[in-house]
């Protein structure tokens, strides 16, 4: 029995070793060791982060650098461990996609203390990294709410679906949306409630809102596309979508298709590809000691039926 246990343990280790085989050192065409960038991503089960990852891999291939990608699965604690591992492996640079504003800051401090340049992508940390590539989250909500204001002629009742309460993206998108609401006194916020970024939860919430507010609803702003799609489905099933303007943020594939199909009114495009590619470019510039921009802001773009074909 014991021997069997040992054997299975050895078997597992062998499998693990084979799986990690792709992490072995690779040489460039000139026979020199390729520069290595350690990447710690917030959450690889999020479509948006997957897109950032894909564009980073592509850029790394073009520029002749090697990426070691690890997934922090939303845990800032795990993220710090990953950065510690990168430091121990003496990588040439680190790209960090922070889980949280405060809790991921130690990761930045540790890399800088070890003399390894670190580039934050998509989200900020309290500590200042070597460079930052991302977008102002407030801007996305301002663009979406501004579109609602225009569509309603500055007058009407709006509902807002919040993300996971207390997360940086929720707080910033909330702040951006409220800026426009304050500037547009004709817009009334009927209710604002969380659907936790989740399509199924958003659908239930919208069904409840339709009950509570009925024909008083003129527009819905959802802080991400998943919730926007949920709200859209509920409105369509209730047969009142033609009376309500729905906008959301992120431009995921589903939402883009819905805009093209004239179901969703608008979404706001956050450029995952540009963020990922620019992050790798910046890191490579730093490694090669070339001049680089310490802060790159990739602009958001409003997508409506008019321009949906371009994306």
């Amino acid at each position: 029995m014991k021997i069997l246990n040992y054997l299975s343990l050895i078997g597992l280790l062998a499998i693990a070793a084979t799986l990690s085989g792709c992490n072995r050192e690779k040489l460039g065409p000139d026979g020199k060791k390729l520069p290595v960038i350690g990447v710690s991503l917030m959450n690889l089960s999020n479509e948006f982060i997957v897109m950032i990852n894909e564009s980073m891999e592509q850029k790394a291939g073009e520029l002749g650098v090697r990426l070691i990608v690890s997934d922090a699965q939303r845990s800032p604690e795990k993220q710090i461990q990953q950065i510690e591992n990168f430091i121990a492996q003496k990588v040439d640079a680190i790209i960090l996609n922070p889980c949280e504003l405060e809790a991921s800051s130690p990761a930045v401090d540790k890399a800088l203390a070890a003399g390894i340049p670190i580039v934050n992508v998509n989200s900020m940390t309290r500590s200042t990294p070597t460079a930052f590539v991302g977008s102002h989250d407030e801007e996305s909500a301002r663009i979406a709410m501004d579109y609602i204001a225009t569509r309603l002629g500055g007058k009407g009742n709006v509902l807002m679906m919040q993300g996971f309460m207390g997360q940086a993206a929720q707080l910033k998108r909330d702040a951006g949306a409220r800026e426009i609401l304050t500037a547009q006194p004709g817009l009334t916020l009927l209710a604002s409630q969380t659907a936790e970024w989740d399509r199924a939860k958003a659908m239930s919430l919208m069904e409840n809102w339709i009950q509570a507010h009925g024909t008083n609803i003129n527009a819905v702003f959802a802080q991400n596309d998943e919730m926007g799609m949920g709200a859209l489905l509920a409105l369509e099933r209730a047969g009142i979508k033609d009376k309500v303007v729905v906008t959301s943020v992120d431009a995921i594939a589903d939402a883009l298709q819905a805009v093209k199909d004239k179901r969703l009114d608008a979404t706001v495009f956050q450029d995952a590809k540009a963020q990922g590619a620019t992050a790798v470019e910046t890191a490579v510039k730093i490694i090669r000691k070339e001049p680089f921009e310490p802060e790159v802001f990739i602009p958001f773009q409003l997508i409506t039926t008019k321009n949906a074909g371009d994306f």
Partner: protein
Amino acid sequence: MIARSKTLLPQLMRTWGLAIALLLIGTALSFAHPGFLTSANLLNVARQISINGILAVGVTLVLLTGGVDLSLGSVVALAGVVAASLAHPGDYPVLVPIAAGVLTGALCGGANGLMVTRGRIPSFIATLGMMTAARGLALVVSNGRPISNLSPAFTRLGGDLGPLPIPVIILAVIALATSVLLGRFRLGRHLYAVGGNTEAARASGIRVSVIGMFAYTFCGAMAGLAGIVLAARITTGQPNAGTGYELDAIAAVVIGGTSLSGGVGRISGTILGVLLVGVINNGLDLMNVSSYYQAIVKGAIIISAVWLDRNRKPS
């Protein structure tokens, strides 16, 4: 058997107590908000509880045997993406993705059952492992992306049949069938016996591991079914779907009077528990109670339901 008849009276009292609580809350809500007591809204509540309801019925059987299943949410996601990947327009007849989804769930549940009954791994650990593995598998199957563009025949499962939402019909059929199974069939009585006192059950000739396998496999199949209904309702298979669903389901079952230590519980109680949670969710949304307070209210209800129950039970 003895364990069951002893608890029959408080069991009945508890079910009625819950029904009365539900009625009181319902009455209060219909005064508090004119939109609550309308047929459209009540159908909304029914529609919104159906997924949690299907999961809760399934996990009731596992809890009856004294086990627990933490993998429900992940299995919902896995079955959802498996079904969705076979449900594009023109792919296969709609029965294929449905069968594949239920089968996926049943396989996960069966694996849980094997680990618990044959492998003697505590159910908490075995299903915790399955929770992680099934989530990973869901991400692999879907490449980490939602699977959309599903055929209308498939998404119809999330829609209505006449005035009734199809998910609600599915829940009603399953709840009724399971209730009959538990009350009228030997398999049902054996489930109670195993959960009440495993050793006594084994001594009286009940094949304990077969009963356990059945409970976990059934629970997994229900999670698969819930995954299909969810994918149809939100018209996508989502690898991230269902996070935390296992706890919502277990909470509803416990509110409904099923004991976490096994042997005690009824499907009618589970359905009442699911309804209570659903009605409160709906009511708080209608009255636009802040999200922060909603979470506090829900937590308080779970604790007080079990606490009241504990105080009423003769020791």
